[in-house]
């Protein structure tokens, strides 16, 4: 019992983490798909939370976080890479050709030169799709309301966190400003950039955001529990 206590098993924050993580539908979905992936994501969540509370820069925890992030990235890219980023479907090709006509008519030589045409045909469509994926994963409705009210066409959306947790998440964001806002921003950008390469139809969703949303939700609960304790 004492050993467990020393490990922090009965720690209030630890218990909150366990409750939040295992009451989210998303965690169970990932667990059913791949136990290893789920465990790493929970590890990232725990380390991320620990780092947010630590006053000093913790080299070891940061390195473990980066390593775990890297592992999830590799797994994620292996099973969910967006093949659409490398090709255009028929509708996209039609649109590209039609717009080519408009741009050529309006811009003349500014558009009809090797450099512009190369960018227009070989980079712009793929950059656009990357941006689409990137901003899709930054949509909070994706996590709390299965993307409602702006569901994406052709994608089976599912609720990842209970919508009730949104309150805790918002409190968590505000609380994180007092702790380590730079860390939060860096994680957000890193997870967003990787998820930009993942297909929006990937059945597990943007898993790198699981630790981010879970941690901030836990943070919100911790803050509220502390406030209640003070009262």
């Amino acid at each position, binding site marked *: 019992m004492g050993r467990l206590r020393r490990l922090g098993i009965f720690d209030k924050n630890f218990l909150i983490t366990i409750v939040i993580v295992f009451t989210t539908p998303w965690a169970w979905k990932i667990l059913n798909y791949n136990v290893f992936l789920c465990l790493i994501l929970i590890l990232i969540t725990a380390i991320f939370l620990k780092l947010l509370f630590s006053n000093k820069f913790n080299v070891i925890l940061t390195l473990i976080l980066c390593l775990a992030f890297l592992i999830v990235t590799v797994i994620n890219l292996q099973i969910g890479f967006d093949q659409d980023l490398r090709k255009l479907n028929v509708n996209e090709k039609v649109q590209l050709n039609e717009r080519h006509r408009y741009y050529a008519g309006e811009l003349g030589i500014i558009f009809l030169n090797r450099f512009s045409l190369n960018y227009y045909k070989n980079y712009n469509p793929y950059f656009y799709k990357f941006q*689409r994926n990137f*901003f899709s994963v930054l*949509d909070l409705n994706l996590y709390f309301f299965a993307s409602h*009210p*702006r569901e994406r066409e052709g994608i089976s959306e599912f609720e990842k966190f209970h*919508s009730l947790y949104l309150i805790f998440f918002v409190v968590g964001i505000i609380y994180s400003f007092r702790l380590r806002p730079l860390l939060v*921003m860096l994680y957000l950008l890193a997870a967003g950039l990787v998820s930009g390469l993942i297909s929006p139809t990937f059945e597990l969703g943007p898993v790198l955001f699981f630790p981010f949303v879970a941690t901030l939700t836990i943070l919100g609960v911790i803050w509220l529990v502390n406030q209640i304790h003070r009262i």
Partner: protein
Amino acid sequence: MKIKILLFLIVLIISIFLRFYHIDQLPPGLNADEASLGYDAYSLLLTGKDQYGKSFPIFLHSFGAYQSSLYAYLTTAPIFVFGLSIFAVRFLSGFAGILIVLMTFIIIYSSKENNKFWQALLASFIVSFVPWSIFFSRTAVEANLALFLVVGATCFLMRSLKQPVYFIMASFLLAISTYAYQAQRLSSLIFLVGFILIFAKQFINKKTIISVGIALFFIIQIPQLTLINTEAGTRRLDQVNYFSKDYFNQNSGSLKSVPLGRQIYIINQFSSHYLAYFSPKNLFFDPDPQEVRSIPDLSVFYSWMFIPFLFGLKVFWDKRNESFIKVALLLMIISVVPAALTREPFYTLRVLPMLWVVSIVVSYGGFEILYKLQFNFLRFLLLLTVSIFSIGVLYSSYFILLKYERSSEYGFPYIELAKKSENLSSKKFVVDLTRQSQSYIWFAFFKKYDPLKLQEQGKIVLRDYYNASDFDGKRIIGNVKTGDIWDKEPCTSQIIVGDLLAISEADVKEHGLHSEFEISDLTEKVKLKGYAMNSKEKCI
């Protein structure tokens, strides 16, 4: 000092250019709501009545949606000066857009910030060239006028913290804004009350001024309050909310069988809709789903603005005790409430005050980033890069793609048809209204049709103007009739006009129709077809 004035003038010139350059050609045409506002203004100017013959209406019946009327009243002035034209109808919105840029500068310049000139200059620059501000300043929308009034009120509210007498002016502008746009009827009231509550301590000894301000606000509301039980007073919300039992039964899924399911459903709907307005996806990438209210491939902000937005949130948090930040946050939070009560997923027009605050958040974040760069050369380079990139994106999406891909949404084919009917004035046209019941308004607008004659056709509405929300769109505008193209008019030669679904090949054979013309939109896709129907041949 001279360089500062010069820079400020450059920002103003940019905002004028972006709002008025080819405003009569881009967007290409007029959408039905703009045409209706313009024609109502024309009718009010000439007759003192709207297109249905209602004297000085509080809400405009329009197509049965009851638009706010202030825009139409104020547009009588540009129509008087410039005549009934696209430029005259959009003039007020463009002018309001420039004043918003100017007031943004004044508000931030007069706040307590350090480096306030550069902060204010950057904020006004951002407001002058963000896509939402340009787009809505170049279309005749009541919401942009309402935003101008709200920003003006914010300016006076900030001043009232030093000189409380300005509170009365702010109350007046907020009260007027409720006549400019429907959503303001709720949010202006909450904004005023919220402001008083937040700064209650500062106004504790100024109860008289606060009372006068509040009284003025409510006195100005009296005309609207008298209509609260009419369809005009509540219909807009009834049309678009998700509170009704029918809507719940059709859309709630498994919640139907849960105790308190409807209440849970409403809370869930409100939360998800509210949150959608703060989604980076909706703010920085996806355009508004309504094509007539958005720019192709461009959201309300440029995608790069997401980075300064994040920094700006941090700055707002750090400066959260400053008066302006409190007011801005209040405005941002409350202005989304009316929009979140409606079904549409992301309706930009309803949240312009929120978008204005987000623009300021972006500018604060941008300023923070520039401030952290140590060399002026790097600052200049960064500003130049993002400006050129943004201008490129704006030009490509707004000045090229919108022109071609959205011309149908702006009535381009019907405007061309109106011109054609003028050229063929001896012929009689019948235009199908199955999928475009509002088409008569383009003919009335572009033919400058006598308002008295149009009022005569719509006067049935006058029996109970504010409760007559039904609308059929059947009118006769000179030689153009909008209605059922298959109405039997024996022995009359006429040209019937409809979209591709209205007149099939089988109809052409059966009725012996002869193709007269085809009208395409700017993408060169045929949108309307005209056929001569020579009934005389059948009569012989």
